[in-house]
């Protein structure tokens, strides 16, 4: 029915398509900011001052840019980096209809593995050590997702429970590792500082011509972008990606089409775990340069990663932009609190509203399309009559 009444196909170029896809998330951000402003005003503060400070805290000011000072933007990017990895991890799971709610556990395992390998491989040349550490952390994350994956595939144990249970186990396991075998010389619950050879270089070290002032953003973000492209390619162009999307779309149809749900599930959850493991590794190698209890437990990148994936509608490239947005909100919040005296928690309210509007958008578009279709069908019927 719908095929016959389709409007003539207009070939969109990539930019038009991107704009159309990004339009609604952008509008959602604007709406969320508007409601956030109302809440700020209701609490007796100045919303214009607040969001101005937020923007400045997240991106800096033109005067700073002119002298090559991208410190604020670097802060945003450094906060966006683990969110990008975690967002990719969760988005990949969602694509196969798997909710990897315990990504935080895989992230912790990746982080502690990175710290361990960093201490072991510290004497090696950087270009040997860092790839090996990253591979090790990814494998650790994948391994931590492997048992939940097998349990899902073999006995149908719900991944929401198993990955979450493994996330708690990871929390205690890593807590023991860093307070026992790997504790620092002073006996604190943290690993020793990693040798500088395994630190991920910051962007000012990589591109001194552009970043003339030290920034916290590091190579990890570029790796995240590369991985986003890789994940997009896997989903779009490979047999595995086809299987993942097919299982995510319709299990029974996929099975009838000869795709093994069990094998696809194991691959999808392990890849998701590997990406989460890299989130932990990038935080350890790029920002903290050691592993301590709060690396993930307090900040919960794995959970914010869920929001990042949802805002990106599980599209790997969109995850990067979504992560930058969440990174910017988090980086600008401090400045907002300082300048406008607005509690930084308003950021979470705005984040929640963004996710809500993006989620509602899908529904609203669908409703409008359905209306139009019904109207067209009615017209078609009257034409016949």
């Amino acid at each position, binding site marked *: 029915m719908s095929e016959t009444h389709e409007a003539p196909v207009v070939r969109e170029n990539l930019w038009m398509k991107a704009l159309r896809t990004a339009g609604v998330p952008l509008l959602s951000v604007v709406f969320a900011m508007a409601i956030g402003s109302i809440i700020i005003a209701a609490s007796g503060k100045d919303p214009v001052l607040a969001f101005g400070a937020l923007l400045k805290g997240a991106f800096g000011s033109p005067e700073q840019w002119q002298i090559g000072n991208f410190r604020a933007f670097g802060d945003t990017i450094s906060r966006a980096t683990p969110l990008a990895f975690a967002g990719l991890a969760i988005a990949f799971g969602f694509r196969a209809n798997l909710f990897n709610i315990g990504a935080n556990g895989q992230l912790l395992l990746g982080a502690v593995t990175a710290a361990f390998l960093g201490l072991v491989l510290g004497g090696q040349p950087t270009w040997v050590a860092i790839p090996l550490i990253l591979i090790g952390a990814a494998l650790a994350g994948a391994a931590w997702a492997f*048992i939940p994956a097998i349990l899902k595939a073999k*006995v*149908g144990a719900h991944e929401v429970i198993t990955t979450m249970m493994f996330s708690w*186990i990871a929390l*205690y396991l890593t807590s023991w590792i860093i307070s026992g075998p790997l504790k620092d010389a002073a006996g604190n619950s943290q690993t020793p500082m990693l040798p500088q050879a395994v630190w991920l270089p910051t962007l000012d070290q990589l591109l001194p011509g552009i970043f003339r002032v030290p920034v916290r953003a590091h190579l990890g973000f570029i790796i995240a972008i590369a991985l986003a492209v890789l994940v997009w390619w896997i989903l779009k162009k490979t047999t595995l990606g086809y299987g993942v999307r097919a299982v995510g779309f319709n299990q029974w149809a996929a099975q009838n089409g000869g795709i093994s749900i069990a094998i696809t599930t194991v691959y999808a959850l392990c890849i998701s775990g590997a990406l989460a493991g890299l989130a932990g590794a990038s935080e350890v190698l790029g920002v903290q340069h050691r592993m301590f209890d709060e690396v993930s437990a307090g900040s919960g990148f794995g959970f914010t990663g869920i*929001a990042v994936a949802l805002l990106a509608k599980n599209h790997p490239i969109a995850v990067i932009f979504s992560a930058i947005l969440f990174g910017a909100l988090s980086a600008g919040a401090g400045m907002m609190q300082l300048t406008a005296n607005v*509690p930084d*928690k*308003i950021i979470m309210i705005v984040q929640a509203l963004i996710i809500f509007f993006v989620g509602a958008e899908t529904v609203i578009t669908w409703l409008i399309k359905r209306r139009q279709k019904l109207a067209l069908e009615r017209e078609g019927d009257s034409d016949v009559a």
Partner: protein
Amino acid sequence: MWLSFFTPDLFASAIRMATPLALAAIGGTICERSGVVNIALEGMMLVGAFFGVVVTLATGNVWLGVVAAIVAGVLLSAIHAFASVTLRMDQVVSGTALNILALGLTGFLMEVIYGHPGATNGIAHKIGPVFNFPTGGTGVLATIWTWVDQIVFSYTPIVYIAIIIAIVAQWAMYRTRWGLRLRALGEHPRAADTVGVRVQAGRYVAVLISGALGGLAGANLTLEQVGVFSDNMTSGRGFIALAANIFGRWTPVGSYLASLLFGFAEAIEIRMQSFQQGNQIPVQFFLMLPYVLVVIVLAGFMGRAVGPAAIGKPYEKE
């Protein structure tokens, strides 16, 4: 050593710790049985815990605090119901958004109302135990009485209410017309609709009940256990409740028993903090035991945890 570890107080503590988990888990059971996924239990507990304290501080009446906690949970769940039933939004998306909203809203209002981040002011009097029997003395009888008093009679009201709710909900779900209809909504909403059950209204009721129970769980945390609200104080309990619901195979009593397992773990965790001397095994290995146990049970003994067939699927009347 072990005698001084397994005191009656440890078991009583387990039941106390299980209470907020159980209330939220039963809420989750009812909600999910109607076909609506509820990962916003965490947020519902959080707003309940927060507004319970706010209203108690404002009015001086802790029972008004309990009512406020329930109302706050219901209001948050009403958003979830509107989004997932009326708007037919993705229920995981809505739940995630509400969890973040609850975290942000409570943190924001805390600073606006009390002028400092981190925690609210403390309430003057927490809700005390229902019974207050004399204990003490020596001899076998006195020891037995101490155990009975601790394990049976030492709790605050919401602890008993949670047990009653578990039993009543189990009865209602399997022995009443409401329960039959509720289960039909989650298994085959089209069939339920065909025989005249109002699917959307039924789902609204179920989601709102889960909000009320989540709010009550929050009230138990702040008004009975801690006496003050601190930032993100539920710290993942809503998600554990979700696991308890699945572990309890989507039944109210099952949810309660699964919560008891986690409650026991939490009680041991607290006990361990004051019991570390001379211990060869690192405390973390004790702490991870319940979670390992759940995985083993899921892997070996329970087989497939099969949820309601129509869970997470919005229903559209034809």
